[in-house]
């Protein structure tokens, strides 16, 4: 309606400067009405006409045209949807406000039961995965076709966009999300390692750094001498993450040129003098280091000195076996020796990272035993524990827990760090931990111990399902502070949700292995 636009022009400029436009060209009753307005009182004339036109526009509203959509409609889901209202509510609740471990467990239980999320939970689940990378591996398989379709419509959910889960491996590799591509690669590495390596090599140059690092890591499966050339080339990658992954993988190939070069750098620094081994650090940066991803420039906030920084990088990339072979010492003896060295910090940090990179269980055990007596390096303990198979790991926890259960907070914190989402400590240890916690709660410790409140919720989300009954129905009193009441009711909600989730699972699958 062009008359509206002329009215708007006048309204913008003001009737003091521009007269109210005549209603020319308007026919019929409406035209007559506008003419009558024009002939009436001068005050309010502009708005009166605008009001009449506004009402007319409103009554005759024509919705704007939108170019027809050619976006595909979501594919039908073959998997049945989770229908049980109590479980739906528990998963919704976990996604909205539960700990990450609980979110992971609910989604994984649903997927393991062959079900998918109901439509109304898809945005919440996709948002949970956007916030926490650790929960994505559980979110994506629970989405179903509708969820994958939805993710493609929102940039924030790009991580979940992938090929249809019913598609073949090639399609999932070509069109899949990073998670899906990693899964395709890892699967192929198990049966045809060479073909998988070629698939990756062809793709690497086009990928962003984060994806290069993530996919390169998949070569750990079935790694062999044939992988050396590709890994060696990645030592010169632009991205530090990629260089580090390549270096860590090459450590698993002791015959590789990279390992030989690193050992050659290190050998002259470790000398026997007067029957004792003596550690030195490099005197100057070596220009040849750049081929092996060793950074001569010490980062600004690095706590090590310059020479220690160089030594640490060499130690980190040296296979652990080199040390025992060279010195004839056991890992435990080496650790004892290193504590007396000037270069102790560089050695320990380098070894710790080497242990984590290649998951050397014997070194790991030795390092943990060493840490029990040396409390200086506790930050590493959780990560090291995570490497061990469960029985070897839990031996350390039992020492920590103590006969009186006084270490229960520390053990739960370590176990929380060591168990990947979806894993639990063993049933036996879980029972001991839950019993120790229950004793403390019944004794009234929660009233003043704020850390214990936090630990209680973590334990409820972490421990093996068979120990949960000990954390259910904790004693309540009339005079609880709001903080205490909320800790207890959060714990009760987590326990209840997990008991519901375990009803989805066949009872035999609830045990878990060490972290892969």
């Amino acid at each position, binding site marked *: 309606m062009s008359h509206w636009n002329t009215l*708007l022009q006048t*309204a*913008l*400029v*003001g*009737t*003091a*400067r521009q007269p109210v436009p005549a209603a020319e060209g308007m026919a019929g009753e409406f035209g007559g009405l506008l003419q009558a307005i024009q002939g009436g009182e001068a*005050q*309010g004339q*502009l*708005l*009166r*006409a*605008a*009001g*009449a*036109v*506004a*009402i007319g*526009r*409103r*009554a*005759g*509203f*024509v*919705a*704007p*045209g*939108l*170019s*027809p*959509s050619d*976006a595909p*409609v*979501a594919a039908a889901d073959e998997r049945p949807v989770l229908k049980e*209202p*109590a479980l*739906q*509510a528990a998963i919704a*609740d976990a996604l909205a406000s539960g700990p990450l471990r609980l979110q992971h467990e609910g989604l994984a239980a649903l997927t393991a039961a062959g079900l998918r999320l109901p*439509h*109304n939970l*898809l*945005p*919440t689940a996709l*948002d949970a995965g956007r916030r926490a990378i650790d929960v994505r591996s559980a979110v994506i398989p629970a989405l179903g076709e*509708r*969820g994958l*379709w*939805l993710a493609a*419509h929102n940039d924030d959910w790009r991580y979940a966009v992938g090929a249809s889960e019913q598609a073949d491996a090639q399609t999932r590799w070509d069109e899949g999300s990073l998670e899906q591509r990693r899964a395709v690669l890892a699967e192929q590495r198990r049966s045809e390692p060479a073909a998988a390596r070629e698939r990756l090599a062809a793709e690497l140059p086009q990928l962003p750094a984060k994806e290069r690092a993530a996919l390169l890591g998949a070569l750990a499966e079935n790694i062999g001498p044939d992988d050396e050339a590709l890994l060696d080339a990645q030592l010169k990658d632009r991205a530090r993450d990629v260089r580090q992954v390549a270096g860590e993988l090459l450590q698993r190939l002791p015959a590789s040129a990279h390992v030989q070069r690193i050992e050659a750098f290190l050998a002259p620094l470790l000398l026997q003098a007067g029957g004792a081994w003596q550690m030195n650090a490099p005197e100057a940066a070596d220009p040849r280091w750049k081929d092996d991803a060793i950074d001569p420039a010490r980062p600004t906030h690095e706590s090590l000195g310059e020479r220690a920084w160089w030594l640490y990088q060499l130690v980190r990339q040296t296979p652990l076996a080199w040390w025992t072979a060279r010195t004839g010492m056991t890992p435990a003896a080496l650790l004892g020796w290193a504590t007396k060295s000037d270069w102790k910090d560089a050695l320990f940090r380098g070894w710790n990272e080497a242990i984590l990179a290649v998951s050397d269980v014997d070194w790991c055990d030795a390092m943990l035993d060493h840490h029990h007596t040396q409390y200086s390096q506790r930050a590493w303990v959780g990560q090291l524990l995570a490497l061990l198979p469960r029985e070897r790991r839990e031996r350390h926890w039992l020492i920590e827990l103590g006969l009186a259960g006084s270490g229960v907070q520390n053990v739960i914190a370590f176990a929380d760090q060591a168990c990947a989402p979806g894993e639990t400590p063993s049933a036996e240890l879980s029972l001991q931990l839950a019993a120790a916690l229950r004793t403390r709660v019944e004794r009234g410790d929660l009233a003043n111990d704020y850390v214990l409140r936090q630990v209680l919720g973590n334990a409820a989300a972490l421990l093996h399902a068979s120990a949960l009954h000990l954390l259910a*129905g904790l004693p*309540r009193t*009339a005079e*609880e502070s709001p903080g205490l009441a909320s800790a207890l*009711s959060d714990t*009760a*909600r987590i326990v*209840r949700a997990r008991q519901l989730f375990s009803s989805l699972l066949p009872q035999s699958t609830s045990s878990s292995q060490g972290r892969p």
Partner: protein
Amino acid sequence: MSLSTEAVLALAPDDASAKAAKGLLAPAKWPTLAYSDDAVWGECQGSGSKPYQAQVDLTGPVFRCSCPSRKFPCKHGLALMLLRAQSEASFTAGTPPPWVADWLASRREKAEKKEARAAEPAAAPDPAAAAKRDAQRWKRIDTGVQELARWLDDQTQRGLASLGSEQQQAWGSMAARMVDAQAPGLGQRITQAAELIGAGEGWPARLLDRLGRLQLIVDAVPRRDTLSAATLADLRTALGWPQDRDALLVDGERISDQWLVLGQCTDERDSKLVERHVWLQGRASGRRALLLDYSHGGRGFETAWISGSERAAVLCFYPGHASQRALLAEQLADAPAASAGSAQDTSDEWQRMAQQIAANPWQPLLPMVWAEAVPARHGDQWWLRLDAAPQALPMQLATQEAWQLMAHSGGAPLRVFGEWDGEQFAPLTAWASGAAVGSAPVWALAGVRT
């Protein structure tokens, strides 16, 4: 009647109550859980020695609990209904114990008394005194409206382009003057118009639209003697002159029907004041109705409505042309005989809208049902594509809710109900396309909009 978890959570007066209710869900906390045809009740072990007694009259649903909470419904009532939704097997069928039966009986009695009162001829009000009060109010409104007319003229003489955020305060005091002049409806329109200044692209056009329609109300006031009774009623509503509910229940147009709850929403008005819209459609009459309620301080609403459900009732409509607003006059035990005609014909929503606006141009919101609508996102804007046509309505919806609606659609059509304000469509309820009338919606707007 059985409610879904979502439907129960939609009844919570605030998020804190919903969260607290979820903490009470272990059946072990409830020594008693039982139901009859009309009611559900349970005893919940609190921290004290005596358990709280929570009960729900399912004809509402109306909640009652012995706990001291001022929230309505309280966490115990919500938890009771959540448990019912999630583990029905925990409840036993039974005869209501005295603490439930007495309450149900007193509710029935009160309803009967109210009905009897409504049937009695109203105590003869003093017509002379009423006329005098009306005349006084009109006098104050006349004065206010004259001032508003001059002020509006001032704005247009100077031009809207010169407006900026520094004028918003002046507009706020003008709105306050209209409230003083006993025309709060005008004050509200000025406040809403002031919010448009400088807000988004094309704001002057939206502002001109608002001010133009405001001018029409201003023009109508001095001409009120020439208006029909119905138009005068519409004008009084537009001015924000409240109706006397008792008089309305006596004089108003009554329609007895089987009412489908099309949808509902709650909006936060001022701090702590919540306004609820419940939209109904009569199965036989095809008439659409708006029940408008208010609640203060997070207390919630006494009677709950369940979107997608049907209820036999007599509604009493406010006077005016094409009146939508109504009061619930009477709940009926049995549905009135259904007519053959279907009230679900949505092919003519545009026609219906045009007629409504022609009948009463001051109607702020119009209900619309679209049988085949596809929610879509283009750029930064949500749209509702209509009936496979290239036409689409701009859609006003919080992001999280909009994604839920998308999830339910999957790119395929839904039946969508919502409110149209002339510029934006606010969806309130969605059903699978072709779902039976009276079936549960797949999606309903939840929570209080701020």
